């Protein structure tokens, strides 16, 4: 089994990507390649839907951390949505890693994104977002 990567149409400063299959030594480079062009200064949220993921190993975790590190300098975040129990367990084991935004559903992640958007507007930073 390999890894299927679905890159959804971009939203306002957010980008959703769904993963299915196994994220491991054999597939992490595919994810790195798919994410590389998305990790721009304009992206403030990379939303990774993990509900279809069957398996993750340290190589896969490293890809997630790499994306997080790429976005961090300009305040961007990686949000993880609906990791199945087996994936959640591995994420929990490395809880020292602040993969701090894990959401039960896309609705929860969307609510978080909306709240973040509102905060940006209220703080009144004049950046054009799109």
């Amino acid at each position, binding site marked *: 089994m390999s890894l299927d990567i679905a890159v959804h149409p971009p939203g306002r400063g957010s980008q959703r990507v769904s993963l299915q299959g196994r994220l491991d*030594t054999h597939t992490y480079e595919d994810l790195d390649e798919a994410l590389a062009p998305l990790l721009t200064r304009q992206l403030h949220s990379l939303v990774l839907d993990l509900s279809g993921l069957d398996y993750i190993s*340290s*190589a896969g975790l490293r890809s997630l951390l790499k994306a997080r590190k790429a976005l961090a300098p300009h305040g961007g975040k990686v949000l993880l949505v609906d990791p199945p129990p*087996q994936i959640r367990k591995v994420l929990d*084991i490395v809880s*020292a890693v602040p993969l701090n935004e894990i959401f039960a559903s896309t609705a929860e992640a969307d609510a978080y994104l909306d709240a973040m958007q509102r905060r940006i507007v209220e703080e009144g930073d004049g950046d054009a977002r799109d």
Partner: protein
Amino acid sequence: MQMRLFIPREQARVDDLNASLEAVLRNNGISREIQGNVRLIVEELASNAIQHGDVSGLEAQQHELCVDIGIRDRLLTLEFRESGAPFNPLEQPPPDDLDAGILERTTGGLGLHLVRQVAEQASYERIGDSNVLRLTLSIPSAGSAP
């Protein structure tokens, strides 16, 4: 049930090893959760050995990885054997500051940490030219899976 599988020290073959193990586990009625744990342990140990193992002192035909898997009563045992310079995966420091150093770090620290956490018991022995790691996982009785 007891069986032994060998692969050459090549990353591309690790998936073959795991596919074989998964078939064995499935045929023995082992849950997907335990299958996932075994896959994780084997991938991390094999990748670590292939990427970081020092085999400079060995003949080419000794460049092999060997996994013994046993299922008895409610206990699954894995014995992972690799020839090479002495290396005890259980004595490696935990990845204490993952956030700061992760990109400079190899995946080894993270991977071996996962192995130590997922296995219920683990012991290391140096036998001849080989590093031998024995791990056990308990198998929840049928129907008790969450």
